């Protein structure tokens, strides 16, 4: 299986998890409570992936990796900051 087929397959699984999260909204309070642990577990895993895998790998690919990392950070910052100022208040309420 080539890299394209592999990443498409895994991305499909990830996309399905998005939809599953949407389905959970209507399934009651216990699901919401366990989501907090998913968030904590996921953020720890992501920090490990960024600092120990993606950053070192990026530095071997290009000399301009540091500025590109900052660009990536700021792109998501810009969109989420403009668009989702109401997001976290909503989560708190639910």
């Amino acid at each position, binding site marked *: 299986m080539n890299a394209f087929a592999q*990443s498409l397959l895994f991305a*499909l699984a990830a996309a399905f998890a998005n939809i*599953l999260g*949407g389905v959970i909204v209507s399934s009651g309070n216990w699901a919401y409570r366990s989501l907090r642990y998913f968030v904590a*577990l996921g953020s*720890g*895993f992501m920090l490990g992936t960024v600092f120990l895998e*993606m950053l070192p790998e990026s530095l071997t690919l290009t000399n301009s990796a540091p500025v590109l990392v900052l660009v990536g950070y700021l792109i998501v910052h810009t969109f989420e900051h403009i668009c989702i100022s109401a997001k*976290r208040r909503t989560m708190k*309420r639910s």
Partner: protein
Amino acid sequence: MNPIVGISALIGMIVHTFFDGVAIGAGFMISPRVGILIFLAVLLHKIPDGFTIASIVITSGHSRGKALAGASALGGSTLVGVLAVHLLGGSVLLAYALPISAGSTLYVAATDLIPEVNREKGVKMAIVVFAGMGLFLVARAIARM
């Protein structure tokens, strides 16, 4: 809440899930090992993401069907991210895609998710974050075998 909030929140999250896809695609272009590690990192916050957008859409006055459509749009945008990095691909793009998606993943983890975790007092949630890092180290060790 204003219905427009649901739509703007969706646009914001679509950008972030697009880069989830870019990260997965770039990871698999480097090696299956890196690809799978990035996939697991993405997967662990996908369900909370879908949950978040669906609850915003509902509380901003839309129907449950639209909430599910919103969650599906996040999934779709992840696939578009993978397609973009592979179709436009080549090693030059990869050299840009990986660091940019590293930055976007850093934002989602450290600026988006960690404050959520910190809102809860006590050491239990802090330990779960370390458990997440531990899980990463275990996954990496397995992937290297």
